[in-house]
């Protein structure tokens, strides 16, 4: 059931979304510097190939759960840039009317439910969705993207055991970006390659170059195919790197400059563009990049001008209120 790589058209779309994400991250960084954002923002610069590459073959009825660092997952899963940015800025036009903020974006219509700021929580969430899909006889799949830090949580273990035991249609996509917050993985994990743990659940696993969107795509597509056809879960460990620190409130000082430089040289956008450059005209790529930048600029301009939400008590007051 090996999948061919993504077609050139698919690669172009993946690259376009990666550029969108990168421009979004940069714009958010700039806005943060101006004091225009609220709360810490977890940029994913350098990890775009994972979030976009792993979700590119999914249907909108497939279900993705994400993390606190979900921007590439949101765009990869097909969410609208303007409504994502509006949510990050706490506007009424955001996917969640400003109630969620950037760590918790969800779009049920797009099968993205959703960002999660409890580390690891997306893992059992996807597992439960997969159980529901299996019970309903749907051939949709669930995918959770999660970090190397999240892999140390108990719920990761419990979920993988249950998913393997029940052959649930779920893909565990581990974005190994070397750090959990400020702590290097060597101080968090007793093993360097987390995919070795899959053997403990008799689950297939694979390590891929997380900075190569095509490699990520192929591994994910195979896993999705396996899940869809009743073959159960897969663990994919994508090795990548977080280029811009933990969040906008990161004061740095714990990372090695040489390490950063090494990974910067393997920027996933550079890798993807280089591969495409062999297939299509560079003008097309330049144009695509300019378009992507424009989409992001427009999204920010619109979102910044959008109205903030107004407070109202929740209509489902029985559930949200103890008293009558």
């Amino acid at each position, binding site marked *: 059931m090996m999948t061919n790589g993504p077609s050139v058209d698919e690669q172009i779309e993946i690259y376009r979304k990666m550029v969108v994400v990168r421009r979004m991250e940069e714009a958010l960084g700039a806005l943060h510097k101006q004091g225009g954002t609220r709360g810490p923002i977890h940029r994913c610069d350098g990890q775009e190939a994972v979030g976009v590459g792993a979700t590119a073959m999914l249907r909108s009825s497939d*279900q993705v*759960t994400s993390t606190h660092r979900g921007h590439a997952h949101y765009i990869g899963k097909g969410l609208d840039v303007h409504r994502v940015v509006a949510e990050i800025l706490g506007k009424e036009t955001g*996917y*969640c*009317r400003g*109630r*969620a903020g950037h760590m*918790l974006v*969800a*779009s*049920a*219509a797009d099968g993205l*439910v*959703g960002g*999660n700021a*409890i580390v690891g*929580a997306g893992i*059992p*969430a*996807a*597992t*439960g*969705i997969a*159980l*529901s*899909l299996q*019970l*309903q006889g749907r051939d949709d799949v669930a995918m959770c993207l999660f970090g190397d830090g999240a892999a140390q949580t*108990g*719920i990761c273990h*419990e*979920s993988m*055991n*249950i998913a393997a*035991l*029940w052959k649930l249609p779920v893909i565990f996509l581990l974005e190994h970006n070397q750090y959990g917050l400020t702590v290097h993985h060597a101080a968090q994990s007793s093993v360097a390659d987390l995919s070795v743990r899959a053997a403990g659940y008799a689950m297939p696993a694979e390590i891929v170059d997380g900075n190569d969107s095509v490699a990520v795509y192929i591994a994910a597509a195979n896993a999705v195919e396996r899940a869809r056809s009743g073959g159960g879960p897969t663990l994919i460990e994508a090795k990548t790197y977080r280029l811009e620190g933990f969040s906008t409130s990161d004061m740095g000082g714990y990372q090695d400059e040489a390490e950063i430089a090494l990974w910067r040289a393997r920027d996933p956008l550079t890798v993807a563009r280089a591969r495409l450059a062999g297939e299509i005209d560079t003008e097309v790529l330049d144009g695509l990049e300019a378009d992507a930048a424009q989409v992001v600029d427009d999204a920010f301009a619109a979102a910044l001008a959008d109205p903030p939400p107004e407070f109202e008590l*929740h209509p*489902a007051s*029985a*559930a*949200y*209120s*103890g*008293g*009558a």
Partner: protein
Amino acid sequence: MAKLRYAEALNRALREEMQRDPLVFLFGEDIGSYGGVFKVTRGLMDEFGAARVRDTPISEQTLTAMAVSAAMAGSRPVLEIMYADFMPLTLDALINQASIYEYIWADQVRMPFVLRTQGGGGAGAGAQHSKSLDSLVAHIPGLKAVAPATPWDAYGLLKSAIRDPGPVIFLEHKLLYNMRDEVPDGEETVPLGRARLVREGTDVSIIASSRMVHESLLAADRLAGEGIAAEVVDLRSLRPLDLDTLLGSVARTHHAVVVNEGWRFCGYAAEVSATLMDHAFDDLDAPVARVTMPDLPIPYSEPLERAVLPGPDEIVAAVRRTVA
């Protein structure tokens, strides 16, 4: 009108709801082939198969998170957590996930799941298998919590809980499973959020739930012998609270005693007392008395356990002090 044991009434409710709605499924530890350690799910795996009645690994945290997300994906899960003492393991899924999605995601999702568990002392099960942690779950916005005291309510409330569009925590009591009493013949439900006036009286309102309703009735009998006419209100629903019924009762009796099997400090009885302070201060001729567990772990040995569990002696004494 059939007479059923409380456990049988629950079993009947589960069976009927599973027959009615193919989206309902059950999961939990030992609920399948064994039929549950308290026999509530007996026979259901045979009738509905191992996919809809699932034995699980010991992974409460993940199972609860899966109930939340499976509900979001369209199923109607009913999860059994074997002892209420294990509820701490479920609280991240309840407080950080189930509680927030509907509101934070601006009504994009619903989570129709039921978490059944059983608590309470009196069976010599020790400090880790005897607790009543009502206030822990009743504190959580977005959830409902019910605690039936009779087979009728066990049956009717469980049906309502399964049909409810949101999460419901369903608190059973280990000493009630063998109680036999009437259960309606038809498909009657009992609405969530409504207390029940169990016994009328003019001198004091005894407000209780679960097993403490029966202890309160014993107390009321004794008090009648002393010329004190006690009214007994069974809350049935811990959240939302049926304020109208409470206020109506206190307006008649001008005295209130709240009985709860949980700990006193920050316990459920504190909320009832504070609520009466909020709404019925002028009606009250005396402070609301709380009858609860002392703030101690529940000891094993019979004389010790008997000493800490609230019962008719403590209720009678509290009423006497209150109406004095």
